[in-house]
C-alpha cells in the first residue's frame, strides 16, 4: 500500500493521553456545535429553509407536548434496556450483534403466551408465564452462540447476526400462520377487547411501568458490572482471556453466563415492547433498536448510566427528525441526513479525545 516515493504522509494519527475532563467535555461540545452548523448549511442548501426553524421544529417534535415527552421517554427506555442488555457481553469483548433477534424472540414468546393463554388463566399467572417465557427465549438465543463460542471458538459476530435472521423468519412464518384476516400477514393487536396480558396504565400513563422496569434494570446492571465478582470476571476476560485463565477464571463459564444474562435482558425488552407498547408482534417489533443499541452502548463507553444520556440523544434526534419531515413536507431521508451528520460528529469527537493528528513537519522526516 505504500507509495513508491516513500514520502511521509501529510499527517499521521497517534494515541494521546486522555485529556482532562473539561477538555473532553469541550471537544464534545465543539463537535455538537460543528454538527449543528454543518447540518444547518446542508439544510439551507438543499431545502432553502431557515436552519433555526428546522431545529426549533425538531425540539418541538421531540418534547413539544406532554404526549411527545412521554413517547420520547418510552422510546429512550426501550433503546436503553437493549443497550444495557448487550453491555455485559461487549465488556467481555464478545461482539453480540444479535440483540435484535434476542429481543424479537422474547417478544415473540410474550405474544404467543398472550395469544394462546390470554383469558384462559388468571391475569397474574398469565404475566408470570409471559415474563418467564420471554426471559427464557431471549436467554436461549444468547446461549446458542455463546455455547459454540466457548466450545469451538466460533465467530460470535457472524453467529449472533445469523441468529437475528432465524428469529425474523420464525416470526414471519407464525405471523402468516396466525394472521387475521386469513393470509393477510398481520396478527393485529392481541386481545384488543379484553386487554389481557397488557401492562396496565398507571395513573393514566401507559408507559410508566416500562420506564420503571428499565430504570431498575439499568441500575442493577451498573452495580453488577462495577461492584460484583461477576462484573470483575467479565472485565478480566474482556482484557485478556489468558490473564483470566492464569488467575483461575473459567472463561467458558463466564462467556456462557454473561450471554445468558445478555439474552435474558433482551428477552425482557421484547416482553416490554409487546406487552407494554405494541400489543402485537411483527418482524418490525424491535425496529432496528438491536443495532442502534450498539451505538448507544459504545458512545457511553459501556457505562450503563451514561447510556441514559446517549440513548436519550439518539431518540431525541430520531423523534425530532420525524417532525421535520412532517412539518416541512420533506422526505424522510432528509431527516436521516440531519441525524446522520449530528451522530457522525458526536462519534467523531471521541476520536479527537483518544487520538491526535500529527501533521508532517515540512522538510523534517519523522520515523513512523
Amino acid at each position, binding site marked *: 500500500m505504500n507509495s513508491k516515493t516513500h514520502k511521509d504522509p501529510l499527517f499521521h494519527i497517534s494515541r494521546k493521553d486522555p485529556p482532562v475532563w473539561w477538555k473532553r467535555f469541550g471537544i464534545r461540545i465543539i463537535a455538537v456545535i460543528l454538527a449543528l452548523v454543518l447540518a444547518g448549511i446542508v439544510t*439551507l442548501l438543499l431545502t432553502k*429553509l*431557515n436552519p433555526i426553524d428546522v431545529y426549533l421544529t425538531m425540539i418541538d417534535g421531540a418534547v413539544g407536548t406532554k404526549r411527545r415527552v412521554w413517547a420520547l421517554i418510552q422510546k429512550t427506555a426501550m433503546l436503553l434496556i437493549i443497550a444495557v442488555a448487550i453491555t455485559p457481553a461487549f465488556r467481555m469483548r464478545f461482539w453480540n450483534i444479535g440483540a435484535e433477534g434476542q429481543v424479537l424472540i422474547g417478544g415473540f414468546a410474550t405474544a404467543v403466551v398472550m395469544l394462546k393463554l390470554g383469558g384462559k388463566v388468571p391475569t397474574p399467572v398469565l404475566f408470570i408465564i409471559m415474563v418467564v417465557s420471554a426471559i427464557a427465549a431471549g436467554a436461549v438465543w444468547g446461549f446458542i452462540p455463546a455455547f459454540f463460542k466457548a466450545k469451538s471458538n466460533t465467530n460470535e459476530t457472524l453467529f449472533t447476526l445469523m441468529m437475528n435472521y432465524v428469529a425474523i423468519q420464525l416470526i414471519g412464518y407464525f405471523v402468516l400462520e396466525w394472521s387475521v384476516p386469513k393470509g393477510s*400477514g398481520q396478527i393485529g393487536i392481541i386481545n384488543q377487547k379484553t386487554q389481557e396480558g397488557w401492562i396496565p396504565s398507571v395513573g393514566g400513563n401507559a408507559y410508566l411501568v416500562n420506564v420503571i422496569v428499565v430504570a431498575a434494570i439499568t441500575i442493577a446492571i451498573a452495580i453488577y458490572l462495577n461492584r460484583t465478582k461477576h462484573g470483575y470476571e467479565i472485565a478480566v476476560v474482556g482484557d485478556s482471556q489468558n490473564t483470566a485463565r492464569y488467575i483461575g477464571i473459567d472463561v467458558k463459564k463466564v462467556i456462557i453466563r454473561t450471554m445468558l444474562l445478555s439474552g435474558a435482558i433482551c428477552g425482557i425488552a421484547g416482553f416490554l415492547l409487546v406487552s407494554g407498547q405494541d400489543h402485537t408482534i411483527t418482524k*418490525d417489533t424491535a425496529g432496528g433498536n438491536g443495532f442502534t443499541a450498539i451505538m448507544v452502548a459504545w458512545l457511553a463507553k459501556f457505562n450503563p448510566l451514561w447510556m441514559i444520556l446517549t440513548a436519550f440523544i439518539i431518540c431525541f434526534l430520531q423523534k425530532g427528525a420525524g417532525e421535520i419531515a412532517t412539518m416541512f413536507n420533506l422526505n424522510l431521508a432528509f431527516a436521516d441526513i440531519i441525524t446522520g451528520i449530528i451522530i457522525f460528529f458526536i462519534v467523531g469527537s471521541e476520536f479527537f479525545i483518544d487520538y491526535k493528528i500529527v501533521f508532517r513537519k515540512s522538510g523534517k522526516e519523522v520515523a513512523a
Partner: protein
Amino acid sequence: MKKFVSMLLALVMVVSLAACGGSQTSAESAVEEAVVEAAVEKAVADTTPAKDTEVVESEDAMDPSDLTFGFIFLHDENSTYDRNFMEGAKAACENKGVNYLEKVGIPETNECYEAAADLVDRGADIVFADSFGHESFILQAAQEFPEVEFAHATGTMAHTENLPNFHNAFADIYQGRYLAGVAAGMKLKELVDAGAEPKVGYVGAFTYAEVISGYTAWFLGVRSIVPEATMEVQFTGSWYDEALEKEAAQTLINNGAVLLSQHADSMGAPTACEEAGIPDVSYNGSTIDACPNTFIVSSRIDWTPYFEYLIDCVLNGQAIPADWCGSIETGSVVLTDVNSNVAVAGTDEKLAEVEAGLIDGSIKVFDCNNMTVEGKPLDSYMADVDTDPNYEKDTEAISDGYFHESEYRSAPYFDVMIDGITTLNAMF
C-alpha cells in the same frame, strides 16, 4: 495545528455568512411551509373570511379552513403505493380548501397509534391511515378520541366494530383488474394467433383474499377474450420486495407465460418483463417510462373521491358510513392510458364498451357461468366477511348467478381458487 485552526476559522466564517444570507430566504419559505400552522391559528382567531369561495353556505356547516385532515403513510413518496395515496390526499385537501397534515414512514406498530394521537393533538378532525397493518392501532386511537373521525384503507374491521368514528374504505378494484385483463386478453389473442401458447402469469404477494380477488378478476378479463387461456401464479410472501418480485416474474416467464401482471407495487415484475420482452399489465400506476416496449395498461384506485367525501361529511356534520366502497362511477377505480405501442388496436373502444357493461350491470366480473371449481359449477360460497381469528365463513356471497364482491364489506373477500389458475406456491 495552525493549519487546523485556520481551517476551523474559515469554516466558522463561511457559516456566519451563510447564516446571514439564510435569514432572508428563510422568511418567505418559513411562511410558505408553516401554512398549516398559520391556518390553524387563523381558525382559532376566526377573524378573516375564508378565501375559498365554494364554501357551502349552510347555517351549521363548518368552514373548510377550520378543518384539518391528518394522514398517516407507511412509507414516503418513493413507494408507489403510498404515493398514490399522497397524491389523492393533497388533491382532495387542496380542492376542498382544508388543512393538510401528514406523517410519513409510520410502521405498523405502536408508532401508528402515537402518530394518530399526535395528529389529534395538533388539531386534526379526520385521521386517515393507508396501510392494512395500521388498522388495529387506528382502532385503538378511535376508541380514545371519540370526537375525531378515523378512516383506514383496505381494512376489514369497521363494519363489525360499531364504533361511530371508525371507518374502512376500499374500491371495486376487481373491476379495474377485469378491465386491465380485457386489454391483456386482446394482446394475448394477438400472440396466440401468431402461434404462442395461451398462458399468462401473475406475481402475487400473499395468498390473501385481496390478492386472489385481484388475480382472478384479471384472469377472467383475459379469458373473456381468450377462453382457452390458463394462468400460473407465483407468490412472493411480501407486499413489497423488488428482488423477489423480479425473480417470481422470471420463474413465470421461464415456465412459458407469454404475458404477465402483478399485484405487488415494486418495479420488479415490470422490469423483468421489459428485459424479456413480455407484455405486462402493472398496478397502481403507469410503468410506461421504464417499460415502453411491454407496458399495456394499469389499474389503480384513485383515493381523491373518498377523501373529498370524508371532508364533505365532516363539514356538513353528516355521519360517515362504517364501510365505504368506491366504484368506477365515483371515479375511484381508474385505468391509466393504454400504451398504443404494445396494446392491440381497438383496445380503447373495447374497454369503453366493457366499462359501460360493468356500470350498467350487464357484465358481472365474478359471473358464475365463467368459473368452475374442480370441474363443478360454483353456485354457493360462504365467505369470511366478518373478520375473526377462526376464519369463520359467515356470509353467502353468491346469489343471482354471480359472486357479490365488495358488497358486504369494501375490502375484497373473494378467495375462491377457480379452475384454469395454477398457484405455484402458497404464502399464508
